[in-house]
Structures are given as structure tokens and as C-alpha cells.
């Protein structure tokens, strides 16, 4: 694995290896001394063209626990409005000796350009690009499901997972569909038709417009953040109607099988896609997701930066 750009690029073996490695990383985090010497002397740059404190500090914690040097480079706004191009920024970081670039960018495909154009020689980790993908989010989701529903080993064969909400604008949904399919789970997307991209018939998943009908068969339900402003572009009539039809509330919580878990990539819009009852219920594993994020990102950095050394 040279870069981590898309979960569509991950084979079944790659994906399971990432999860197994994350499990090993998680084990080290139970020790009194959490820091590992593995990436000592290596430099990881967090290149964030979009605000995302959660994702950035998760990557930062992961890199630091592997003893890497971390440089945070925040370049908010598009390359054009900032005046410096992505190319120049990347080449500057290359000149400073970045071994890995963790990039968050509002433009879909920006990490692919970074990896393909030779603007940096380091490994490129996609930390969310536009409405395209967010691979480490999907990995931490899969890791969380594996721990809660599959005994913490192997893949997710036989599980049924719903991804509910604004699929159209969601990089989390795209990464999850690919990865969950690779790991053997069946996926159903649930959203108003306006928020399902045209062309999803080619995706390895089902699509439903009826959340109540889907809930009783699920092992996990993943609620996506919905921005209230979407109603201004007529994606749905009002926040109240969205919440009534697609929000996870106490009644819908009761439709889930007893073992099923409730997930959310955060930050949550309480009262819109998820009610306080659902968010704070015992089935909600939202904070586990956050904690697992560090383990999964440690695994990704380890496999990208130290993995090559292991081969030789």
C-alpha cells in the first residue's frame, strides 16, 4: 500500500490487515506508556484545506503515539482563493521532507492529484476530499462494527448496515459502501430520493426511501450529518419534515433488533438526524468510534510508512 486514497482501492486482505493492525495498535493504547518508537524520525504533515478539528487531532494523536514528528499546515479555503496552488503547497512540504501527507480538501480528487502528479514523494492519506471519500472514517466504522458485532476478528460477513441521510454530499457514505461491501456486509442506503446520487444503481448496495421498513433487519445503523441549509436548495421541505421521515428517534430506536448499534461520524445535529434519546442511548457507539479512530489512523500510518521497511 503506497497511498490511502479510496476504500475502493482496498482488497479484502488489505482491509482485514488494516483492521488487525488497528487492533494491535489499540492493545498498545491500554499500556501505561502509550507511545511507540515505530516512526521516530519520520515526518507527517497534516495538510488541512478545510476546518476539521476532530479529524486533524485524531491524525495528530495517531502520528505522535507512533513517535513521528507532526507538522500541522492549515490552509483554509480553496487554493485559488488563497493564491497558492495545491501544487506549490505540496512541493513546499516535499522540500521540508514530509514522509506522509494527510490531506483534507474541499475538492473531490485533490488527494489523487497529489499522489499522481509527483508533487510529493511521501505517502498520501486522504482525510476527506470534497464529496468523494473519507477512507479512515470508513475503516474506524468497520473496526467499531467488528468489535461490537463480529467478535473483533475477521471480516463483517453477514452483517446488515444502513447508512441514513445525505448520501449525495457524503464522503463517509461512499467510503463505507465500498469498504463494507469488500468486508462482506450488506449495505442499504436510506435517504429522501433528492439526497441519493443519480447513478447509485451501480453501487454494491440497496437503496430505500423508508427508514421504518429497514430498521428491524439491521445490525448497525449509521446516521449521517444533515445540514439544515440543504432545505434552501429544495433537497427537503423543512428540518421538521426531514426529522419526521428520516431522523432516528426513540420510537425508531425501538424498531431495531436488540443487538443493533447506532453510529454517527460526528459532529451530530441533535434534533435533526438523531434525537437526544438515540444519541445518548446504550446502543450508541459514537464515542467508541472516536477512540477507534486513533487506532485505525495509527494502523494506516504504520502500514504506509513502516510497512515498506518490513518488506525489505
Amino acid at each position: 500500500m503506497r497511498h490511502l486514497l479510496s476504500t475502493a482501492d482496498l482488497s479484502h486482505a488489505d482491509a482485514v490487515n488494516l483492521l488487525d493492525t488497528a487492533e494491535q495498535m489499540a492493545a498498545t493504547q491500554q499500556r501505561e506508556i502509550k507511545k511507540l518508537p515505530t516512526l521516530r524520525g519520520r515526518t507527517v504533515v497534516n495538510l488541512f484545506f478545510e476546518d476539521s478539528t476532530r479529524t486533524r487531532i485524531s491524525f495528530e494523536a495517531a502520528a505522535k503515539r507512533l513517535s513521528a514528528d507532526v507538522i500541522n499546515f492549515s490552509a483554509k479555503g480553496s487554493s485559488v482563493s488563497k493564491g497558492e496552488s495545491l501544487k506549490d503547497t505540496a512541493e513546499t512540504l516535499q522540500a521540508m521532507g514530509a514522509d506522509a501527507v494527510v490531506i483534507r480538501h474541499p475538492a473531490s480528487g485533490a488527494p489523487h492529484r497529489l499522489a499522481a502528479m509527483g508533487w510529493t514523494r511521501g505517502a498520501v492519506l486522504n482525510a476527506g476530499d470534497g464529496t468523494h471519500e473519507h477512507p479512515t472514517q470508513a475503516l474506524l466504522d468497520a473496526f467499531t462494527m467488528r468489535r461490537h458485532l463480529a467478535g473483533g476478528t475477521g471480516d463483517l460477513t453477514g452483517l446488515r448496515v444502513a447508512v441514513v441521510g445525505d448520501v449525495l454530499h457524503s464522503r463517509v457514505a461512499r467510503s463505507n459502501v465500498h469498504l463494507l461491501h469488500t468486508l462482506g456486509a450488506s449495505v442499504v442506503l436510506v435517504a429522501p430520493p433528492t439526497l441519493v446520487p443519480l447513478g447509485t444503481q451501480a453501487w454494491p448496495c440497496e437503496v430505500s426511501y423508508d427508514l421504518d421498513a429497514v430498521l428491524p433487519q439491521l445490525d448497525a445503523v449509521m446516521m449521517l450529518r444533515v445540514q439544515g441549509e440543504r432545505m434552501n436548495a429544495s433537497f427537503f421541505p423543512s428540518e421538521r419534515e426531514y426529522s419526521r421521515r428520516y431522523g432516528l428517534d426513540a420510537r425508531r430506536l425501538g424498531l431495531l433488533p436488540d443487538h443493533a448499534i447506532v453510529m454517527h461520524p460526528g459532529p451530530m445535529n441533535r434534533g435533526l438526524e438523531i434525537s437526544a434519546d438515540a444519541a445518548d442511548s446504550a446502543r450508541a457507539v459514537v464515542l467508541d468510534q472516536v477512540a477507534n479512530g486513533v487506532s485505525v489512523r495509527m494502523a494506516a500510518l504504520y502500514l504506509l510508512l513502516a510497512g515498506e521497511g518490513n518488506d525489505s
Partner: protein
Amino acid sequence: MSTFLLRGVRLPDGTAADLVLADGVVAEITGAGRASTSGAAVVDADGLVALPGLVDLHTHLREPGREDAETVESGTRAAAAGGFTAVHAMANTSPVADTAGVVEQVYRLGQQAGWCDVRPVGAVTVGLQGSRLAELGAMATSTARVRVFSDDGHCVSDPVLMRRALEYVKAFDGVVAQHAQDPRLTEGAQMNEGEVSAVLGLTGWPAVAEEAVIARDVLLAAHVGSRVHVCHVSTAGSVEIVRLAKQRGLPVTAEATPHHLLLTEEEVRSYDPVYKVNPPLRTAADVQALREAVADGTVDVIATDHAPHPTEAKDCEWAAAAMGMTGLETALAVVQQTLVDTGMLDWAGVASRMSSAPARIGRLDDPALGGFAHGRGLVVGAPAHVTLHDPAAPWTVDPAAQQTSGRNTPFRGHRLPGRVVATFLRGRPTVLDGRPLPLDAAPGVST
């Protein structure tokens, strides 16, 4: 002026012939090897296809305003290298070509450069803003003699404004060339909407945004009795609408670009902005429908939509990149590959789609234009605009080796089957042995 004897050419109808170009006109057409060589510069054209000088109905020359992307000189040099003897320069310059002054400037720059005739396209609306008509009559009666009007890059989306424009240009036999794109349906659009855009997370440009405008415009044109031309049709649905309109006898013409005849949206999976263009690359089914439409005449014209950009406009992430591709120097070879070599179109068809039809739509075929008329074919007495094309000379596209200032060819690294060997404008070679010949250069062949 020198006399040229083009020895052993293959005419568009397939017959072998000698062509004699003298005094700016086609002076003689004889059987191969029969024309007299005395006093003439002889070009050994055995095996080369002779086409009437190509006419591009859709070229962005960028001057005035974006000379960093292209100038009239570099753009027309590229046109000559691609076998063109006339190009229609689109109006989206800075300032916009919406006054007689700007179109006359562009026309004059073309004459000075001398590579090919430049026919400026006038903007339909002031500043391409889509709110009120530009002074179309002033542009029509200027020395630039504008006949084609377009807000290309923008759609004349207001139906009332479009109706008025269609009506108004009848007074001087003009035509409105519509960039068919519903603006509301394509806000923020980055690529064709469908399976690929869903995976890539790029905002979709739905086919219906093009088709709905074309349907409206052919009905409007019929209603007011005006002709309308549709720029760069890109979808199977657009083809169906144009075909139906023509079956009803409506006065519509349409063009397709070489890149829409060869490339599909699959290219976008690389996120390489060299494939970012408007309208976007579509599906393989659309490509096939376009090829069939060109072959059966539903699409009248191949037009390049040559759109050079400076390197930095493409050397970035997809969303930040400019839309457009260069195309003048690859057009004929791509047409050969997609239509001639596939058996869908013969060279006479190529001459129609790339010379006589665009010239007729732009009213360049008027004999009153004398030597500045185009698209009149390879007939004795017609202006000596001739393109010699070698259909058996494969080459690999290298943007750095092209005449255009733009490096944004989507065919970089493609192997194309044929190349332009020579271009004659009013009997003077602008390109010989595949190389451009500046105005002041002596003809580079021995007699």
C-alpha cells in the same frame, strides 16, 4: 504569386488527380500525372487526401484579454497546422466581442497574422450577461462582417431574449449559435451526471440540461422562422431532438467536437483536469450516438471548440481547473480515427462536415466574398483553399510540439492515424511538409 501543382492527390470522391493552384484559385484539375509542370512548384502528393480548406465554426483565440493562453497569431498558426483555412473566433474575450470595434480588431489581427481567415463571432448579449442584446447589426455591417452570434460559454437561457435574437438576426442573414446549458440545472457542475459522477463525488451536469434547451430553441426557431445552430451537442438525447427537428423540416444545424467523438467520462476517474470541458465528456453510448449523427448528417458540422488555457489553469485540483481543451491540431486526425477508419464517413463526408457545411452556416460560401469565400469545394475557379492530409502517417500527440500556446490537449500520448501535410490559403502555402510557413517565408519547395 507562385503556381503550385499538387501531383497525384486523392480527391474527396476518391479519384486521383493533379491540382493546379494559380492566382489564388483552383486553376486546373486533371487526371493524375496529366497536368503540365512548367513554371509550377510541384508538391508530390501521391497518396495524400486533398480536402477543401477546413473551416472551424467554433474556436477560442483568447485575444484580446487572455494573451497568456493564446493569441490570434498562435491560434491561427495552430489552425493552419490543423488544416484550417478559416476559423470563427468566439466572442468570450476580454473585452467581450460585443461591439463592432472588438470584432474588427480580431478580424484585423487575423489578417495581419495571415495563417487563416478569422471570422469573429459576435456576442448575442452585452458582455455575455444574458440581459440585453448587443449591437448585432453594427457587428454585421462592420468590416468583420459578422454572421454568427453566440454567447458561447454561457447559454442564452432567457426564452424571450433568445426569441428576439433569433428574430433580429434575420435582417442580415445571421444565425444564433446556442451554447445549450440550462444554468440552474448545472450550478456547480463538474462532469457528466451518472454512475461515474456518483462514485467520484463530483457535481453532475445532467444531459437534460442540454436537451431541454435544444428542444426549446428548435421550437422557438420554428415559431419565428429563423435558423438556429446548436454548439457542441454532446448527448444521445440531443441528437434525437435535432434529428426529429430536421425530420419536421425545422431550420436547425448542429455541431459536434472531436473530443466528444472519441473520449468518454471514464477519463475523469483520473481527476486529471485536462479532461474537464464544457459540455462534459459523456458516456460511450453518447459517443456512439454522436458518431452516427455525424455520419447520417443529423450533426452537420465538426467544430473543434479549441479552448487553450495556461498551464496553471489545469495544473491543480479538478474543481479549481478551467474547462476546455485544445483541438485545432488534432481535429482532422481524430475525425479520421473515429469516423473514416471506422467506415462511417468517407472523405467527401469529411469535406462536408469540416468545410462546406460550416462555411454555409457562417455564410462564408458567398461568391461575393471572392478569395475570402470558403467551403466552395475543390472546383475550378474556387478560391485555392486546400488541405493535404496523409491518412497513413501515424503520430503521437505531444502538446509541447504543437503550435497552440495551450498545452491542454486531452490526446497527449494518443496515437492518431493521419496528419496534415500542407495547407493552402488562396494558393499560398501556410503549412508545407507539416511545418508552418510564415507570411514572409519563400515557398519552401523547388520547382
